[in-house]
Every structure is written in C-alpha cells, then in structure tokens.
C-alpha cells in the first residue's frame, strides 16, 4: 500500500515525463517532415522507397481483386467490335502476298460502350466499317455505324438489343491522380480489362475537344480504349493528341455521341481555304509576324468573298496559331450557322473580315467537275479539282475504262457518269500509282457522294 504523497509525486513525475515525451517527439516529427517534404521537391527517385509495407500482400493482388470486383459492374455494357480497314486495300497479286506473307490484314478490334439498349459508342475513323461483333453470331447480331464525328473520331453505333446498365461518367477534373484505372480494350477474344497506373498530371487544352484532356505519358494503351475507375465510373476514351496518347473525358464523349443522334453525318466546318506555314521569308515579304498564310481559296467556299491568297490570318475570334493543322482542326470543331471575325494582314495592312461559318458544301456529282483532261491513247486524266468535287477519284488518276468504253475521252466519261444506274453507282477502271484498280463512283443525282 503506497502512501498518498509519494504516489502523487510519482504520478506527477510520470505525467511530466509523458508531456515531455510528446513534446520532444512532436518536435522531431516536425523537423523530419520539413526535411522529408520540403517546399522544393527532392531529386526524383524513380524507384520505390526503400521500406515498403512489411508483411503486406503484393499490390498486384489487391488490384486483381479490384478488377474482379469492377468487372461485373461494367462488363454488361462492353462489346468488342471487329473493324475492317478504313481504306479499301490496294490491289494485290501473288507476288505481293508472297513478298509479305505475314502482313496484317488490317482488321482491328475495338472496344465499344453500350449507351442504350441498341446503341453504343466507340472510337472509329470516318471510313471505318464494322465487320462484326466478337462472340456474335452474325445476322441479327451485326453492328453498324450510324454516325461518326470526323474531327474527334467518335462513332455512334447500332448494336443488337440487350439490357444496359446506367453509366456514370467521372469528370476528369475530379479524377485524383496518381491512381490506378481500368483500361478496356478490344481483342480477338472479346474485351479485356487491365489496370493501368495514371501518374500525377495536369490536364491540357485541346483544339478538338471542348474540355481539357489528361495526358497518358508513355503508356502502352491502344487508342480508342475505354477507361473506367475502380468503382466502375466511365472516365473517358484514349485519343491521340499531337501524336501522344491522352484521355478525352467521358462527358465530352457522351455529349458528342448524343449530338450525333440528332444529325446524320455532321460535316466539319470548312471555310474553303488551304493554308501554309508562315516561314521567315514569307513573314518578311508579307510584313506579318505570326499566323498562317492563305494559299488557296475555293471559289464557292464560305471565305471566297472575304479572303484572298497571300492573306496572312493572324487571329480568329481572339484565338491565334502558327500551325496550319491546328488552325484547320479548330475551325472544323466550330458550330455551323455562326460567323467568325478574322484578323488578317493583306499587302502589309492589317484588317478585319467577317466570314459566315457554314458546313462543308454539299458534294456535287463528280460528273460536274471540270477536272478531266484527255490522255490520248490511254484514257482520261483526273485533274487537281477532283478532290474538291467530292468524287472517289484522286488527282492524277487515269481512267482507262468507263463501262464498255476503253480509253474514254473526257466527254465520254462525263456522259457515262451522268447516266443513272439502278444502284446509283458506276464502276470505272483507273490507273493509280502504276497499278490498275476498280473504282466505284456515285452517278449524277445521288446524294451520298462518298466513294466506296
């Protein structure tokens, strides 16, 4: 039995010791924290810290469990599409095949996300054709492209009817990096899910997309792959921006697909101008410091009345660039029906013009073009205007047969193309790049002018 005062004294001494311990340890912690997490970042150590969690299971085990957990949440909405090559393959003969027996067939497998019972979205090129669904039986199981946004390469697709789970898009702005996400890619066996680590990164603005994109860095992820969080929320899709992979947000993608539902094939905005970079010599000659140089203006285009060749476009509604690629893409993403205020330098004088923004003009029949010239004894050569007329011809093609007529003259070609056919298409033989090939072009009066 202890006496009161000594016990009290002991308790008091111990309390002081405890307080001292707390004070000293707190000071040590603060000091170490200042050293460990200083204001300026330390030299980057790309390897893991020397001490990891002891006796913990490997992180890939936890990830595997997470993938297992999220799969049933998103799997019902995923489809793997077989996509045929976007361009018709060049003619081949046996020598070509024997020279490269293991050349890829061009068929791709793309993951698509079901957004309603009978529609889905996927990242496809404008000319892509869906060959089938992996695991589908054909017939009623076929999928078809309904509409494609040619600038962002997002397609709205009709798919066989099936139940769909609600998709919750996760805004890119609220994605806390670094983080593991689930990448869904299409393969020959269907869709695959794998974890990918997104490093710390900030978003950046893109000329083609409404909202900023998130860079993927050096990730080996297929463009067009779909990304989901470990809770099953739709993050977005992988796109290529400036040659590097990036993530376009789910909301952007869903908005685009939604807008595709209200129009058939949205035509990108085209002012009818061709532009070239402003080199130092041109800058000196044209007395302009920045911008892009107008090299050609289409006679019937939206800018025909406002712009001339050798104009230097310095500004469009407050936005400027020196990159012709970026300039044209940015314009293509604008809304038709509005107008743009363009600042130019003409003959050294700055001025401002207003241009109505119209969709690309309706493609006329190739028979209307003045692009044909005669190649005596061979046939008819297609001139540089062929592309502008929207036909399936390319400049430089030589038409060697039109129907039953060999070596046709330009007039015979025009007459042939003006004759309606039951299918609305006509086939011609052309010589292109030294090879003979068969080309189908729409005949006069057909509204769908894209050649197959």
């Amino acid at each position, binding site marked *: 039995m202890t006496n009161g005062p000594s016990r009290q004294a002991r308790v008091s001494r111990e309390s002081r010791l*405890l307080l001292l311990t707390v004070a000293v340890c707190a000071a040590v912690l603060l000091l170490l924290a200042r050293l460990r997490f200083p204001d300026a970042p330390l030299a980057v150590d790309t390897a893991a810290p020397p001490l990891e969690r002891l006796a913990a299971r490997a992180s890939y085990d936890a990830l595997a469990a997470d993938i297992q957990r999220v799969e049933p949440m998103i799997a019902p909405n995923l489809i793997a599409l077989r996509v045929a090559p976007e361009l018709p393959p060049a003619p081949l003969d046996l020598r070509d095949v024997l020279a490269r027996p293991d050349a890829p067939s061009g068929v791709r497998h793309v993951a698509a996300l079901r957004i309603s019972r009978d529609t889905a979205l996927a990242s496809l090129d404008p000319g892509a054709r869906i060959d089938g669904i992996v695991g589908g039986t054909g017939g009623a199981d076929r999928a078809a492209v309904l509409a494609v946004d040619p600038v962002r390469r997002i397609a709205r697709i009709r798919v066989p009817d099936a139940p769909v789970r609600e998709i919750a898009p996760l805004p890119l702005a609220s994605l806390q990096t670094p983080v593991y996400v689930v990448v869904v890619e299409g393969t020959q066996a269907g869709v695959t899910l794998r974890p990918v680590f997104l490093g710390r990164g900030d978003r950046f603005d893109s000329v083609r997309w409404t909202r900023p994109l998130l860079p993927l860095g050096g990730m080996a992820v297929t463009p067009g792959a779909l990304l989901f969080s470990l809770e099953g929320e739709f993050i977005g899709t992988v796109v290529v921006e400036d040659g590097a992979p990036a993530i376009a947000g789910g909301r952007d993608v869903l908005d685009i697909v939604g807008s595709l539902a209200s129009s058939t094939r949205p035509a990108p905005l085209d002012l009818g101008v061709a532009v070239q970079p402003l080199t130092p010599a041109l800058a000196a000659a044209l007395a302009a410091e920045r911008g892009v140089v107008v090299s050609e203006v289409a006679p019937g285009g939206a800018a025909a009345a406002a712009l001339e060749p050798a104009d230097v476009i310095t500004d469009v509604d407050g936005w400027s660039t020196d990159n012709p690629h970026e300039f044209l893409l940015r314009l293509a993403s604008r809304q038709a029906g509005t107008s743009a205020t363009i600042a130019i330098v003409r003959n050294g004088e700055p001025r401002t013009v207003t241009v109505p923004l119209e969709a690309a003009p309706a493609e006329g029949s190739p028979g209307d073009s003045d692009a044909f010239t005669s190649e005596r004894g061979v046939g008819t050569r297609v001139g540089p205007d062929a592309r502008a007329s929207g036909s399936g011809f390319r400049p430089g093609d030589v038409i060697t047969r039109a129907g039953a007529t060999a070596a046709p003259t330009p007039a015979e070609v025009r007459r042939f193309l003006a004759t309606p056919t039951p299918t609305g298409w006509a086939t011609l033989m052309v010589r292109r790049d030294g090879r003979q090939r068969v080309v189908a072009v729409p005949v006069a009066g057909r509204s769908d002018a894209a050649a197959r």
Partner: protein
Amino acid sequence: MARAAALLLILATVMGVQRAGSPVATSTVTLPLGFALIAAYLLGAAAERVRLPRLSGYLLFGLLCGPFLLNLITSSMARDLQVVNGFALALIALVAGLELNVGRLRTYLRDVLLVVGTVMVGTWGVLTVVLWLAWPWLPLGDVGGGLPRLAAALITAALVTSFSPTVTIAVIAESRSRGPLSELIMAVVVMADLLLILGFALALQFGRSTMSSVPTDVGLGVQLSWEIFGSLAFGAIVGAAFAAYLRVVGREITLALLAVCALLAVVAPLVHFEIILAALAAGLVVENVAPPEGDNLRIAIERGALPVLIVFFAAAGVSLQLDVLAVVGPTALLVAAARFALIRGITAWVVRGAAHAETPVRLVWMGLISQAGVTLGLATIVATEFPGWGAQVRTLIVALTGLHILIGPILLKAALQRAGEINKI
C-alpha cells in the same frame, strides 16, 4: 474428446457449405475468419499438449486448409484473411514494447549489442561471400560478374540473414514467458531488425547504382530518417496518449488497446511509417515512462491479442507456398542449413565473450531462426526493383521463409522451456 468432436463438426460444416455454394455466393471474410478462429485455436491447443508452440498449430491449420491441400480456405479467402495483417503487426509490436523494460535491459545491453553486431555482421558477411562465389551454380538468374554480382550477393545475403520480430514476440507472448532470455531475445531481434533494414536499404542503393542507370539518391538518408525515426516519434506520441488514457480514464481498456492498434495500422502506412517500429515505440513509452498499475492492461492484452494472433498466423500458414518449396526446395534447404550453422556458430563464439555467459545468451540463437513477413516484404521490393534475378531471389526467400516459420517457433519455445521462463506471467 468434446473438442475433437467440435472440430470435426466445424470441418464438416465448412466443407458442406462450400459444396452447397450458391450462384450469388456473397464473398465474405466471415466464413474463413470464423473457421480459422475455432479450428486454428483447437489445433494450437493440441500442439501445446505435445509441447509445441500454439503458433505451430495455427500455422499447421493454415497449411492443411490452404489452397495446396484441402483448399477449404481458397486463395481469395486467404487474401481476405490478410486484412488483419497490419492490425496484428501493431498489436504484436505493441506487446513487445510493453515487455521491454529499459531499466532491466541495461544489464544486458552489452550482450545485446555484442550478439546483434557479431551475429548480424558475421552472418551477413559470410553469406555474401558464399553467395558471391556460388552464384553461377545457384538458380538465381544471371547478374554477370564484378560489382553487380557483389551487389546481388549483398542484397540476397541481407534477405537471408533477416530475423522476424513478429514470430518471436508472438511465441513469447502466447507462452506467457517472462525472464532474462525472453527480454534478451526480444531486444536482439528488434534491434537486429532495425539495423538490417538500414543495411538492406544501403545495399539496395548500391545495387541500383551498379545495375541500373538510376543516379544515387541523395535523399535516401532523409527518407530513411523519416521512415525510421519518424515511425518511432509517431509511435511514442500515440503511446504517451494511451498511457495518459490508462491513467486518467482507465476503463474499457481492451477497446482502447484495439483502437490504438487500429490507429497505428491505418495511419502509419499512409505517411510511410513502419507499423512495427511505431507500435514498438508506443509500447516502450507506456512501459517505461508511465507503467500502468494493476493487471487490467495485461488482461486486456490477453483478451484482445489471442484472436488476432490466431488469424494472423493461420493466414500466414495459408499463404505458405508449397509449390515453391517443391521447385527450389533443395537450394532453400542448403541456404537454410548455412544460415542455421552460421547463427549457431557465431553465437557460440560470442558467448565466450559475453558478460552473462550462462543460459540466456547461450540459448539466444534459438530465437533467431524464425523468418516471416519482414523478409517477404523486403524480397518483394527486390523483385520489383530487379525484375530478372530479383524475382528468382524472391522465390528462394519465399521457400526459406516457409521453412523458418515452421521450425523457428519450435526452437524458440524449446529454448524458453529450457530457461524455465514459460507461464511466468
């Protein structure tokens, strides 16, 4: 008889439930947890009857019911069971800290430092040389020659040398041992663990500089200081708070103890602290600065620690990879034998110079055989850093750990029995 019948009933129930499964079988940790608690405990009690440590019974349960034998606890269930790992580590280390009285340890300090220094350095050094010479004949992958091989040998030797404070402390706690040998062994493994982690980090850095293009990290010292001293400081603060609670409130001690362990297990990894070091520091502060009065804390520890220990070691038994043993068994046996001989031999040599050359120091080597989670964690780091040979070294370490976790507790309990320190609490 009654317990045997109960065990059979539980076994039959679990087997029947798994057979009868359901299309919407809800993945839940409760079934394997409940099964492990009862069955592992009964096997542990049976092991105690034949003078083996209870831990061996828990491990045996995990081994028998794990994916490689009966598969009553599948791989995914085993992963779910490991949810208590962090909590168990915190509890075990806290108990160790509560058992280490600095005042009493002062008398053994010289012996502790002598044993730690010589056994660690000696074992590590000799194993490094042996591995460096024998590397081309070992199934550990090609690292070339010269400095890279030396670095690989250094790192591998560090892994092989490492001890397991968790198993050691758990055996001492569950056998209710108290005495000079128990304190000496606990102090030795804890200090050795600390030094080994330091040495491993340096060896890893050496390996990086010789085998990869990553430049020497000048912030390594800062990181290590944060992870080691920061852990100790954080744990000391938590321990001081717990000691104050015991003094001022002194109620619901079991719940408070479990809450402290949960706090350490959850918060420490978030800021890159080590759970073991933090919990050890907490226990040290409670025991040495403001020791609690009465038996309440001891009773609370017994009540709270038992289920956690059962599940922790049952899960460890389930995760023992028997297939790895089959693959690298012979090499693992050779390396284990070399380690055993070195620890035994060096300790015997040290004893002659020790102040207390009687029982405690002579038997210390029996407490240094166990290996467990610490070693596996470090091996995983090596496998991540050096994907080629690192993965093969990890395979060897997994096999070694499996051997040592089975043998180590048996040896340690034998030592405690010989020293007459069992059931002294």
